[in-house]
């Protein structure tokens, strides 16, 4: 791990920023361009970048594969759960307005935030899972093979 000092330092600096940017895109998704899909991919990029530079083992210590698999499922459950909660409130599936019946548009905001959160979680999970699946199959590059 002596090689590529610049790469490693820059990556360490970037990872935090990328994650922050992902959250920005995530939480601005309900009223400006952005949302769960984009945020999820950006979030995953942070981890994939870390994995590319520091190796699969390092990133799997941060983000073990079993958590990734749970996240994939959790996001879908959050999405569907939002819809089911609307049904419990007596409205149609995914009728966000029900979250605030006196102020339908506020309810829409709340609902879309939850749904986007679900999408974001799943997309992050799926992207990292795909990276793990493919990277795990390739022969590992030693530090001297660069």
């Amino acid at each position: 791990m002596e090689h590529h000092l610049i790469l490693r330092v820059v990556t360490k600096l970037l990872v935090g920023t990328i994650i922050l940017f992902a959250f920005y895109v995530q939480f601005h998704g309900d009223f400006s361009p952005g949302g769960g899909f984009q945020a999820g991919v950006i979030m995953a990029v942070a981890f994939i970048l870390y994995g590319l530079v520091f190796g699969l083992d390092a990133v799997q210590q941060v983000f073990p594969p079993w958590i990734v698999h749970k996240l994939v499922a959790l996001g879908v459950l959050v999405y569907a759960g939002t819809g089911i909660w609307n049904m419990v409130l007596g409205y149609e599936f995914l009728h966000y307005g029900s979250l605030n019946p006196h102020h339908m548009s506020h309810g829409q905001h709340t609902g879309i935030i939850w749904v986007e959160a679900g999408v974001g979680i799943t997309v992050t999970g799926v992207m990292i899972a795909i990276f793990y699946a493919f990277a795990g199959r390739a022969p590992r590059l030693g530090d001297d093979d660069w």
Partner: protein
Amino acid sequence: MTLEFFLGHVNYWLFIVLMMTGFYIVVSRGNYVKKIVGLNIFQVAVFMLYISIGKVTGGTAPIFPTNSQGKIKIDPEIVYSNPLPHVLILTAIVVGIATTSLGLALIIRIREEYDTIEEDDILEIEAAMAQAENDEHGSAMGGRA
């Protein structure tokens, strides 16, 4: 067919060219990865078709501007592009990613089992397997399969 007709539909011409290119690659290439690449081009062509449908002449991004208090300000003068095809294509892109990654995952497993990802070689291996099966089990059919 005037020049205007041609230029006015340039997106659609390109869609046809891209689509047929992708389709041709899928059909003609023997390498499994190249087939997936062709499939991707084929799908991307469809994205282009949809996005072209959504374009409104002079239209801008369909986001309502907000004023300083954060209130939405709707100006009937502004023409917006149709956002629906973009939303549809977002879904189609996700489907495309899923298809591509599943296809590549299958290719990895095929490579592990067959040691090749060339269709010709694989067909040869499978023909040999079928021949062996036929030799072993074909007696029930009088040696034919």
